[in-house]
């Protein structure tokens, strides 16, 4: 089936199979590999995107459900040479090792700060506990969120 959706402010079309996830459509059909696939069942947060402004796991949303909706992926947050303040904070804090979890964490942090510009430590723990990172130990991710909140 054909779907039409807004991705990062652009009108896009894709031909998808009914059972295909939004994550698959973004990565394989729309040429946006920023959202990562680490589990395909809502357990890791690597595929976090904003759907009509709501943080979702793109692997749990059918591409068909996104028809007519607005999607923002990590590619839509900043551009090369012009990173989003949250991306800058991640770089500054050294909150990245392999970087596989980073796009999801950046999107989740953008969402957190949109709702709570000065999050408490517990809020950070709560908001980002759905984003797994196997490398960093998360300590620098706290630093990055605090930095971005400034």
């Amino acid at each position: 089936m054909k779907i039409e959706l807004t991705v990062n402010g652009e009108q896009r079309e894709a031909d998808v199979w009914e059972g295909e996830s939004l994550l698959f459509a973004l990565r394989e059909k729309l040429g946006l590999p920023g959202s990562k696939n680490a589990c395909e069942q809502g357990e890791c947060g690597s595929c976090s995107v904003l759907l009509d402004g709501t943080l979702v796991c793109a692997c749990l949303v059918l591409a068909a459900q996104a028809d007519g909706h607005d999607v923002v992926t990590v590619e839509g947050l900043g551009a090369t040479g012009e990173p989003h303040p949250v991306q800058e904070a991640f770089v500054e804090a050294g909150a990245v090792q392999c970087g596989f979890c980073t796009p999801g964490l950046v999107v989740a942090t953008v969402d957190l700060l949109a709702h709570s510009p000065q999050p408490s430590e517990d809020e950070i723990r709560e908001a980002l506990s759905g984003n797994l990172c196997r490398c960093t130990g998360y300590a620098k991710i706290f630093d990055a969120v605090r930095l971005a909140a400034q």
Partner: protein
Amino acid sequence: MLHAAVVRSPHAHARVRALDLSRAREAPGVRAVLAPGDCDALDETAEFEGRAVVAVAAETFGQARAAAELVEVEWEELEPLLDPEEAVRRGSLVGEPRRYERGGYERGLAEADAVVEAEYRTQTLNHNPLETHQCVCEWRGDGLDVYISTQYIWGVRDDVAAAFGLPPDKVRVICEYMGGGFGAKNGAGGYVTLAAELARRSGRPVRLALTRREENVGGGNRNATIQRVTAAAKADGTLTALGGEFICSLGWGGWLASTAGPMQLLHACENVRTVEYGAKLNLPAMAAFRAPGFVEGTWALECLLDKLAAELGLDPLELRRRNYANVDTMDGRPYSAKELLECYRRAEPHWERRHEVRARSDATWKRGVGLASQIWYGGGGPPSYAWVRVGSDGRANVVTAMQDIGTGTRTAMAQIAAEELGIRLERVQVQVGDSSRGPFASISGGSSTLPSMGPAVRAAAADAARQILEIAEQRFEREDGTLSLRGGEIVSPDGTTWPLEEITGLLEDGQILGKGARGPNPAGMRVLTFGVQVAEVAVDVETGEVVVERIYAVHDVGRVINPLGARSQIEGGIIQAMGHTFSEARLDDPHRGTVLTKTLDAYKLPTIADVPEIVCELIDKPDAQLTNLGSKGLGEPPIIPTAAAIANAIRDATGADVTSLPITREEILAALREARERERVGAPSA
């Protein structure tokens, strides 16, 4: 590009009775199907769950998956061997048992004033890098390009070349970035062979990516262990004997990592006897996992030492100090450098907090502090090579065919080259990740990347610097060897400076080409890394919940190149260790031998909600004997002592002895009951 899917054995031990591929071959989009006999990576007999039987390549991943489901396999199930003790009894082993003895173990026991024994167990753990194993294979004429997530592009090159009978340089391996490995991605593995063979037959590039479920079965694992260990000491704490029997459940293959290593190396003790068995079972084979063997062995040894300290009425830190090794415990070689005593000194104030921490206990929440020491390799070694190219703009390009697995290797190499050339970091570019675009570089494993590669890069940069200075000395008519590079300038001892570009600008299209090789490690010396961690915990004695409140870590890895990255390694190691300690475990069906924890909701990785306060320190003293850099690796040391430090803190808080990982609430409650029982029996009845 085609996508591949693999049909795997759902049984731990089975044989294919009949195989029908006809429907799969005709399925939409299918371009190639491989069956046993077509490729060495496929087999009709499965000795472990997840053994590949058939592989399919199709236009889309969905089509490949659908075709794989149309493959009809009739299995004959066979009895799996799953019990490691039974495997040892039957002699089902990977390799020979490994025996080690020094001094006279029995004599050591006889001389002792106190002897403690215990059995410790550790669970099977999965690496679960966020990016699963994956590759794209594409044939170009008679050569093969492999894009892959790997820790060792040269290892992949050699493995794949051997599998296809190609001269190694016909295989080009590319890994620009990758999503974590932790030891699971040290070589090619059967999945790459499948992708390459599917690509060969279809004449198309083929992508093969393991799903998370496949990863949790066949992605490699840290093998489970059973460790029966003994420690004996004089009343003053001097160790007189250490011994252990170590049974490692390796699965169907892998290798026997040194679980006895910490016992042999960490503390001074003249009489040591160990035997290690690698039980061969119908389970997926182990793979190196961040300090393999030493993580498991240190857990048992350092818990046992605290038990001994309690028996002797000695302070655990003091007990470790009294058994400090001044020379290598195995062969008497001097250490190239050892700052473990300094680690103990720096850990002291954190250890001293225990009085105050304990005092914060109440009726339900008991608090305590524990510590554990760490020893590991991490000195790296030759061969490794690097090239440094300086152009007329005075910028440097470091070229070496290593991979950055996420530890910040690129940055560290740029820092090293920048320092040697006296230029700003931004003026150095590092090119890695392509076996046909750079010289051989070491594996990113064994904490060896920085200590192996760093010296090669430094030597290459020094070679380039020397050439620049020779030109400058001629041009400015200075004596040989008098000029140096600093702050982007050429500096003379009399204070005269010239911008670097004044010389490099003369090059026009010419380039300065420096090359460097990793030299040998110091002869006759033992190169090791050391550290201490101190954990503070709170234990709810009613529910068995444990909260780790604080971890202090101090590690000695020689000179630190990138302090931010180094701290991130320590924090990452500690959190991974906390997963090992509390939440992670691969659970297998005890009768069928199939993996029950295939997804990330069943196999629980730590999240940001689990992070305690972590305070890390690095001794940061260059190892003067080791290479032109004085740095050792830090990837593995931080994961080694954490579990024991936590268990020792639990014992400090509650008197409970936990002996198996992961430490579940059930385990805590059982240990608390035992502790109470001991007290009741031990206490004189009124």
